[in-house]
């Protein structure tokens, strides 16, 4: 489908109205006139219409998932809105001077630009997951055509993979560090580790999952699970074939820790919610509110909940050797589902990131204030809790 739009001489974008009977303004019906009225013999009061691109950004066309790829892949676009029409080609989008203040911000974010493929892919997924899709089965097809055009990145199930040779040892990163600002429901038929496996808007964390030593990540390719480094560059092609069920799994080898969850009631300085308990050291337990993907954890398990948590990112920047916390650890919370796990939420231990509570030996719970540095530094490096974990190889579906 996508290739059609990139082969078209231009694409007519019907951005007026909410259905196929709206027509193209200016063709079978007139453009709406801007509002104007005379107030004296030679003065008039006028209400300026929004720019065409601003109107496109607020249109039903812009709110649908499929149209993101259609607009993105087209090389030339003729937009029609209620009060006018405008032509935007890829050259216009390359030309920054023309773009600033000319194409509305929202629309510009959904069209090609000069940002890197990695950023573009993640922007695209962020946008895509915020749009509405009628049929769940379309979730991959509606975006993968656009992802495939990005140079230098690969993807599997809409999750972008790139390798950088910037440092001496080439590293591979995979865009697994996304979360749902608002919990949502699963989209059946797609894996939980991909944003398309969910019916909700995703956001990305600053850093991305680096496939580092001590952490093994394999994807299904050509008959077996293989390391990303062996398959990168060939994965997106798999989408076009009828991919086997195995392609929906990642095989991970990493530390898995069983962590307890606790429901906290609202009290001064403590927001209510389901917190994950992280034994920080012998004296202190941390309570962190995870970013849940699912709503149902709240309802099904009220007390005594324990879930498997996989340590996904294990990168420590050298500059942070004095900063003894695992700043770049991302943990995904999983639920077992037969032979595999599915992700249900995530949290990270980037202390500046969100509210963290601490509970001391006496059972007093209090919020930690990180505004004047890290009060946890005096308590050691914060990896105590991982000692209870074990290295496991498992499938994430």
């Amino acid at each position, binding site marked *: 489908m996508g290739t059609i739009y990139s082969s078209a*001489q231009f694409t007519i974008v019907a951005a007026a109205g909410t259905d196929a009977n709206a027509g193209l303004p200016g063709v079978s019906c007139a453009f709406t006139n801007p509002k104007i009225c005379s107030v004296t013999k030679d*003065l008039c009061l006028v209400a300026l219409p929004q720019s065409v691109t601003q109107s496109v950004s607020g249109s039903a066309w812009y709110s649908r998932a499929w149209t993101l790829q259609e607009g993105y892949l087209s090389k030339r676009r003729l937009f029609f809105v209620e009060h006018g029409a405008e032509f935007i080609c890829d050259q216009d989008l390359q030309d920054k001077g023309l773009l600033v203040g000319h194409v509305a911000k929202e629309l510009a974010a959904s069209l090609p630009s000069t940002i890197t493929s990695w950023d573009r892919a993640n922007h695209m997924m962020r946008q895509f997951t915020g749009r509405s899709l009628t049929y769940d089965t379309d979730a991959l097809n509606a975006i993968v055509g656009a992802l495939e055009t990005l140079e230098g990145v690969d993807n599997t199930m809409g999750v972008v993979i790139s390798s950088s040779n910037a440092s001496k040892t080439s590293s591979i990163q995979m865009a697994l560090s996304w979360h749902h600002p608002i919990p949502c429901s699963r989209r059946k038929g797609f894996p939980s580790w991909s944003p398309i496996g969910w019916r909700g808007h995703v956001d990305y964390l600053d850093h991305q999952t680096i496939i580092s030593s001590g952490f093994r990540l394999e994807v299904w390719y050509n008959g077996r699970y293989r390391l990303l480094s062996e398959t990168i560059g060939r994965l997106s092609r798999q989408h076009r074939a009828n991919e086997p069920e195995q392609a929906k799994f990642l095989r991970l080898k990493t530390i898995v820790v069983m962590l307890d969850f606790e429901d906290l009631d609202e009290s001064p300085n403590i927001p209510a919610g389901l917190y994950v308990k992280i034994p920080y050291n012998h004296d202190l337990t941390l309570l962190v509110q995870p970013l849940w993907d699912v709503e149902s954890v709240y309802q099904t398990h009220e007390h005594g909940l324990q879930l498997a948590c996989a340590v996904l990112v294990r990168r420590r920047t050298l500059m942070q050797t004095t900063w003894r916390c695992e700043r770049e650890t991302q943990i995904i919370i999983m639920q077992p589902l037969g032979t595999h796990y599915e992700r249900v939420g995530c949290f990270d231990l980037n202390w500046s990131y969100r509210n963290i509570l601490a509970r001391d030996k006496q059972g007093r719970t209090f919020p930690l204030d990180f505004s004047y540095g890290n009060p946890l530094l005096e308590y050691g490096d914060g990896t105590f809790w991982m000692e209870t974990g074990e290295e496991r190889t498992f499938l994430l579906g």
Partner: protein
Amino acid sequence: MMEKKSEAQIARTKLLMRRDTQSVYSSNDLDVSCSTLCSRCSAIPWATLVYEPEYRRTRLFDVPNPAEVLQRSSCPSCRIFACSLLNLDTPISKVAYRNSVVEYGDKSGKSWFSSSLKLRRYDRGSLRELYGNYLGDSASLTLLSGIPQYMNFVEAKSWIQTCVSGHEHCKPEPSNTLSDLKVLDCHTRTIVSAPESCLFVALSYVWGQPAPHPEPMDVPNFPALPCVLPRTVGDSIEATKMLGYRYLWVDRYVCCPCIIHYTLADQTVY
């Protein structure tokens, strides 16, 4: 829709006003009548507003409660204020004029400039300046005289031509690589196999609510199109022809095989 008025904008407005007085068009060109204003709007000292010094705030009127009253007013000026006011998140209680722009104030005394409402001399030169950005130069003239405004295909053709002849970067992928490409022939209104190196136009649109069962008249009797086409598709056929092209690709009619297309929960229905 609110903005702080920048120095540059103020300068530009002044320039615009000066140019207005030199305009070759006189207001007599246009049939203007202001007898329809309500008592609230005719009490506004419109004629002197534009000559007020920039710092002076002139009160225009207090917004009635509820503000929707303005929307239902028979006075055209009220309705223009209404469409601007009612789009805001904050309830506005006062409307004033300062620095050549309309200014809104709420109960607490906060104020904002309106970016969409302007007071202008009723002549073509100044209004073309305002609307030119949005509708192209030629459009503003007919628009202001109240004549319904239609797409200027000659102008649109030139936009496309500029790109086709000058932008290497915008060249579409060759259509030969698409296997079994079907397109809509806009001249014969039939579905045809795309000829070699077919130059076609694509349509991107929203279908609306998917019908549980396609309506019979909606199903194409291949290769003919259904008698009744959704308006967006019909208009796109017109537009394609007007822009000098013959073939149009519309997912609903060209995905093969066409009939199966309707029985599946297909991606082409949004």
